[in-house]
């Protein structure tokens, strides 16, 4: 992801320097480069400013996790921040003593683990199936259809599930007419983990397959031909050529998923929390919302958010290190 280091291409005397590969360093040089490059800096500035205000400033604002933050001791958040009392790790102690917090952590990790097993492999399978469909037209049609739900909001996805599987949905209505007792999976806390996974699969299965399809198309077709000539059957070609070809992508996505182990989605859970109850549907993100913003316990919420960010960063760096050990490329190249 990082840019290649510029090579020192000092031009021979008597030629004007190439505008594209300048020499690094040098004070006089800096002025000349600045005169040449200021439009580029100016173009990047508005986006950089927005990130400063809406990304980095709140990231720094996480320090209120160490405060008994009280919005009423000043006018405006900044004033309140300056006037609030510092309490060290008090918020974290309260957080780690809170059984609701651990419920949320447990739910989050269960859902992550469940989806790693029952969701993660599915786009790979779909990509393999799509890749083997010979007719380009049929493949294009299937792709168009299965990509579509990715663009639906969670409100829509949950709505579709309610209309299909809810108490007044299509399935219940057909069952009732056939004389069976309908069951309502939309409000059952015991099967909630299956429900949210099914929703996630419905929304993103097709979309998740794109990256694997791209990786499949990059595999050298001559390998298959050579393997077939040597007598390798269908499954051995899959095992020895296709899967190794997909491995870098699989590892990359696994690392990203592990780094995100504490995020399982947010709107999906907010929308269904009342239907199945807090016990099943409270995840870390909803915990922050319901235990902090709704109840104005800002310090506690910031502590939970900071906990999540720090653990997530540690997870992704660890997973990446392990990938490098195993000889994979990982998220960013070793430098």
């Amino acid at each position, binding site marked *: 992801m990082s840019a290649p280091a510029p090579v020192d291409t000092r031009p021979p005397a008597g030629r004007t320097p190439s505008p594209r590969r300048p020499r690094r360093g040098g004070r006089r040089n800096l002025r000349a480069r600045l005169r040449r490059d200021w439009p580029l800096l100016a173009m990047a500035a508005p986006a950089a400013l*927005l990130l400063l205000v809406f*990304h980095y400033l709140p990231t720094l*604002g996480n320090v209120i996790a160490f405060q008994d933050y009280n919005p009423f001791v000043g006018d405006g958040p900044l004033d309140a921040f300056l006037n609030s009392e510092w309490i060290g790790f008090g918020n974290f102690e309260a957080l780690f003593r809170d059984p609701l917090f651990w419920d949320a952590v447990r739910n989050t990790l269960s859902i992550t683990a469940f989806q790693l097993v029952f969701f993660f492999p599915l786009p790979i399978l779909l990509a393999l199936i799509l890749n*083997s469909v010979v007719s380009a037209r049929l493949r294009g049609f299937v792709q168009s259809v299965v990509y579509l739900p990715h*663009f639906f909001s969670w409100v*829509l996805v949950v709505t*579709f599930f309610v209309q299909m599987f809810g108490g007044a949905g299509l399935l219940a209505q057909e069952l009732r007419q056939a004389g069976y007792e309908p069951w309502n999976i939309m409000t059952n806390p015991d099967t909630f983990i299956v429900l949210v996974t099914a929703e996630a699969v419905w929304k993103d299965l097709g979309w998740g397959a794109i990256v694997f399809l791209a990786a499949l198309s990059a595999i050298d077709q001559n390998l*298959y031909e050579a393997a077939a000539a040597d007598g390798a059957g269908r499954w051995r070609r899959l095992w020895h050529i296709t899967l190794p070809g997909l491995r870098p992508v699989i590892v990359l996505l696994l690392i990203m998923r592990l780094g995100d182990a504490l995020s399982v989605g947010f*709107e999906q859970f907010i929308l269904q929390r009342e239907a199945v109850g807090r016990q099943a549907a409270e995840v870390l993100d909803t915990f922050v919302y319901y235990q902090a913003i709704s109840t104005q316990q800002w310090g506690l919420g910031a502590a939970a958010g900071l906990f999540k960010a720090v653990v997530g960063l540690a997870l992704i760096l660890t997973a990446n290190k392990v990938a490098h050990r195993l000889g994979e490329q990982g998220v960013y190249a070793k430098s």
Partner: protein
Amino acid sequence: MWAGRPSTSLTIGKGVVLTLLVAAVLVPLWAVLVTSLASRGTIDDAGGMVMIPREIDPSAYITIFSGGDVTRAVWVSTLITVFGTAVSLVLTVLAAYGLSRPGSVAHRGLLFYFLLTFLIFPGLVPSYLVVTGLGLKDSLWSLILPSAISVFNLVVIRAFFMNVPAELLDSARIDGAGELRILTRIVLPLSKAVIAVVGLFYAVGYWNVYFNAVLYIDSNDKFPLQRVLQSYILAGQSPNVSGAAVSLPGVTAYPPTLAVKMAVVVVTVIPAVIIYPFVQRHFTKGVITGAVKG
């Protein structure tokens, strides 16, 4: 041929899987569309969702478009989507171009500044405090500015820009063209595919905005469509299925009929379904090459 003939059972298995997947997407869409156009009698006969159309009755659409919450929400969402996408695209394209020349002043530092957002990010609470502290509470800006820049989209566009042949840019520079002119006259026309895809991503994000509206928007007349959909369907159908924090006093005086609810769903789905075919052919070409090379 080296591939050999696949076994019949394998082919049938694949056919079944693909058919089921396509049906899983199309059946709900079909049921919602048909029900939204069904008359009261048809819905009563079916006992709920209608699968087989008997007539086309547009009264549900007339109801929701004759003023009121849904009409207003459609305008609000359209406004946010059009304006927000324009702001996002312009700022992202400018920044991507600004970052597309290795070796320019502060290039590495600036790139690091943008990419670091992937690793460290703010939590919900500080973000909420910053947005409210800037006075954006209950303003539509709160749905645009905090999410205006997606660094992922920026990286994708930048990768595309870096593939533009350097000779083209150099010759334009020799002719005396400034950076902005090079961007709009040479680079952008060559990058239509990626701009279309990223534009779709941004537009979908704005059209789908829900939770930020729960957090920041208090007045009913500024609710975007997803927020109204949530209160119509999930709250309207059964009080069990709504979020307690998002129950809406006064949005609907009476429970909407099933046809009206389904019409709201159709209105929410339609923009994606219309724009999507035009952009879809660029997905693999645009996004994957961008992401992989980024």
